[in-house]
């Protein structure tokens, strides 16, 4: 479990997430891609914390901020999806040509 191996795994997760976020039409699937990207970033962060910082607790603190961001992304994402669906009946990105309400 070397640092390089961990970072490559993190990069793979990030890349898969990026592929999903760019290619998916459905809002929720798009958010899944974003989640995977954050997931990869979180893994890289903790890998660096464990191998390069000597276990400085502030590294874990930063990871907690990451997880907060993840939760906020989810909550606001779902709220926006619900609102867009309510107003425009759109559940895929192509149905939203204009972002103005």
């Amino acid at each position, binding site marked *: 479990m070397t640092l390089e191996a961990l970072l490559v795994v993190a990069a793979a997760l990030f890349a898969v997430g990026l592929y999903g976020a760019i290619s998916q039409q459905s809002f929720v699937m798009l958010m899944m891609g974003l989640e995977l990207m954050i997931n990869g970033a979180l893994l890289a962060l903790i890998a660096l914390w464990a191998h390069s910082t000597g276990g400085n607790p502030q590294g874990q603190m930063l990871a907690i901020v990451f997880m907060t961001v993840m939760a906020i992304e989810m909550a606001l994402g779902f709220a926006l999806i*619900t609102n867009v*669906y*309510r107003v425009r*009946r759109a559940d895929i990105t192509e149905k939203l040509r204009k972002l103005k309400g």
Partner: protein
Amino acid sequence: MGLRPAVERVAARAPVPVFAVAGAGAQAQVDDLLLQPRLHLVDSPAAANVLLIAGSVPAHLAGELARLHDGVSRPRLSLWWSLGSSVAPPMPPAVEVLDADPSVLVEAVVDTHRRLLFGELTSSPPVLPDEEPAPWRGIGPYGQGGTGMTGGVPYGRPMAEVAPDRDGLRLDQLTVRIGPFFARFPTGLVLEVQLQGDVVQQAHVVVAPEGEAAVEVDVPTTFRDALNTPVPVSVLELERARSHLRSIASALVAHQLPSLARRVLRFASNVHPDQSEDVQRLHRLLRRSQVLGWATKGVGPIPSDQLEGTATGPVARASGVDQDERTTDPAYLGLGFEPIVHDGGDARARMAQRLAEAGQALQLAGRAGDRHHDPEASLESPRGRLAVGDLPAQRLLPLLPAVLEGMEWGDAVSTVVSLDLDTDEVLALRSPDRELPVP
């Protein structure tokens, strides 16, 4: 080797999982099977090994009965408990029990199951062919069933479609038929409901296929006999108490209290006139278990103006409609009979009403002496006014769609159970009312 026979020998002593279909004239007997420790009455055919068909099942349910049979887990067999009916069920049963004594039936079921386990009887093969209802039909750009990802009928199964929900969103809505062998409903009752999650958006009552003539109820019971011959009032009142208690027992099963239901059923089967104080004790027990509390409070309210003049017995009186045929029955004059009336009109009031009436019926039975009900006088059955060609279920079923709308499924079941529909009447009915929307 050696392990399997041992397991089978132990399994043969377990309570036999039975899915019971109560046909005409068999509801009470099937309800009472809950008291048999050697049978395990299950709600879902998948959990059963024995399909018990009791009484007579009309021919128009043949297809549904075959589907039910194919849903029972193997090794399986169907068994017919005739209970005096001469019309065999539309699907030929493997074993027939002609004796009405429940202990004979229990012996037969246990024995059938044991022989099934030991390979002396073979599991019955499926009646319907095992094939997809329709081949794959893709019409969308990627072969999906409909346009976009929604809709269409892939494999012949209609997918959910969007419809407005109560929060202003357009979400999926599924139209399904529930019945005629749904364990919580009387046999023969089919509800076509549109479900959004588990909220009933719309409900239709489908009783029998259209075009079939209404059948007269030909199953004799104490109350139906009273339409033709004089019957002692004490007998009628004891039967009334029994019927009300059985209704409460099935409500208890629907509220997930089968043990209390057993207690009530045992009470019902040994009921006698000086037990009206035990009814009080039962009332306290039910209050404590919350069956007469938050489990039913406010569920399925029917306003009294909808029940005015429908003469639907306890259901109407629970909504505050003071109507009881016994007040005009000469046989009850001088017995000190006063109709009991509750207000609220919800499932809780209906159950409390039945419990109170059961107690009152026991008192009346004790005081009745040798008075007889005259067939000419109007008759109050446990479910309301009963006359030839005028069935309480016919007046109760049209109330259902309006009450069920917008209700959560669990409450909908509680509501249907609280109406205490009579299985014989439901099986005899055609489309219950002209005004009902027919699907």
